């Protein structure tokens, strides 16, 4: 199963830049870019911090997808 996300979409909804979000969760802008491109799987701690910074339920940002492309 793959971890998918709609971080970029929600970040733009909240009018936040990658730099601002990175600063508020204590990571580099490159880490936010890597998460948005789904090239880096964040830890539970970072995922929760991102959800808190975006004031959005975590399951709206991140979800698991099975290998066929559907939500399990």
């Amino acid at each position, binding site marked *: 199963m793959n971890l998918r996300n709609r971080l970029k979409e929600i970040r733009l909804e909240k009018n936040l830049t990658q730099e601002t979000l990175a600063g508020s969760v204590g990571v580099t802008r490159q880490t936010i870019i890597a998460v948005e491109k789904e*090239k*880096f799987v964040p830890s539970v701690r970072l995922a929760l911090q991102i959800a808190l910074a975006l004031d959005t339920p975590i399951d709206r940002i991140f979800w698991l997808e099975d290998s066929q492309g559907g939500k399990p």
Partner: protein
Amino acid sequence: MTGMKAYYLSRAVISAGFGLLFGLSGSPWWTAVLVGAVAFAWFLAAPHIGRYSVHPEFGVTALRRDERAQGINDKAARNAFVISMLAAGGMIAYYAAFPAIAVPVAALRWILILGVVVYYVSDIWLRRAQA
């Protein structure tokens, strides 16, 4: 004082300290100034190069790797260690075949250099793979 102001101010003090250290150790005054300026330039650039995040609350160690950078660092260090150990093992096996010849010290230096090269190549490669 905001977090970043505290960071820049503390880095200015640390850079001046570096410069002072060089000045007190007998280096020419312009070397001390240059070292201080280069150190401060590094501290100015560090938050923007993607390797470190800034946590002013940690004081002197305000520049820290985040979890992605730490993961890359761990993998690069593991690669460097494995390759260096394989090279050392290969070299020992090679010289064991010729009991009359001792293992040259220069060869050990090349293994260290190989380890450093593998570390940085892995680091750059992993960063590009996740960019």
